[in-house]
């Protein structure tokens, strides 16, 4: 049962207030029509699903309704931090985008 720090509300809140938003930083292809079926299918369906650190989104459903970024270890349930979407992108890029 997680407690997340909402970077917008500035408070720790219980998991029940949040919704899971899936893997973070899967940008929509700018020109989908130029992609072949495999590349489009990869964007649609393929996921990292790592055992270990995972950059993911959560949405503060009953609070500020904002999506934000959490770095969470899927093997241990540990949480390294939470960020706004833009700050999370910076933190993710600073790690080289790796998981």
């Amino acid at each position, binding site marked *: 049962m997680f407690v997340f720090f909402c970077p917008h509300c500035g408070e720790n*809140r*219980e998991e029940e207030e949040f919704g899971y938003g899936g893997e973070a930083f899967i940008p929509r292809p700018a020109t989908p029509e130029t992609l072949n079926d495999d590349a489009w299918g990869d964007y649609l369906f393929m996921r990292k699903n790592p055992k270990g650190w995972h950059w993911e989104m959560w949405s503060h459903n009953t*609070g500020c309704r904002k999506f934000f970024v959490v770095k969470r270890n899927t093997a241990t349930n540990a949480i390294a931090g939470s960020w706004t979407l833009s700050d999370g992108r910076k933190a993710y890029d600073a790690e080289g985008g790796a998981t």
Partner: protein
Amino acid sequence: MSEPVMRSPLHSFGLASQAKPIDGSSGVWANEIPHIGYISLRGDGRDQAFVSAASKALGIPLPIEPCTLATSESVKVLWLSPDEWMIVSAPGQANALCSRLELALAGVRNQVVDNSGGYTQIFLGGTHALDVLRHVSVYDFESLQPGRVAGTTLGKSSVYAFRQGNGYRLIVRRSFADYIWRYLVRAANPYGLGIADVPVDNLVGTSTASVNVAAG
């Protein structure tokens, strides 16, 4: 044709007729505070032009500190997110306030929506009010300080809650109000629930003067 009459979401419970002054006979006191104006205001809290225009129209500084609320004679302004506020006003004033806001915010990225039909408010007080909140929500209400607002869960619905006077105010969505009321009644069962004559505040006072309200 009959005159327009407002009916609040909890009208069918007939709470108004059961209300009595708060005393020691029940551990929990509650009632609906119906017919209040609710305006959803959207805009960028980091945009100084927006904040000052909105503050001017509202007559009080727009709270930009997360999870806080601001109160004046005529409105309460609840911070809901970095770009969303709920303005609680008298219903008769909601329309005018919307217009004032729209006028003041012309040219600034914003949204002003009259949402008065979409919400109602529940008063919760008494010596065991905090116990009831512990039963119904995952939020740490013990830590909720005056002047702060929490958007959180209430049963399997949601609520915006803040402290006022000796009690709490719960702003809930209209269509969930029936469920939430029943849920609160159930949670309050161990302490005895009294239907409270809610201390009239400025918002309610003006509301009843300006509109017709169905008898409870």
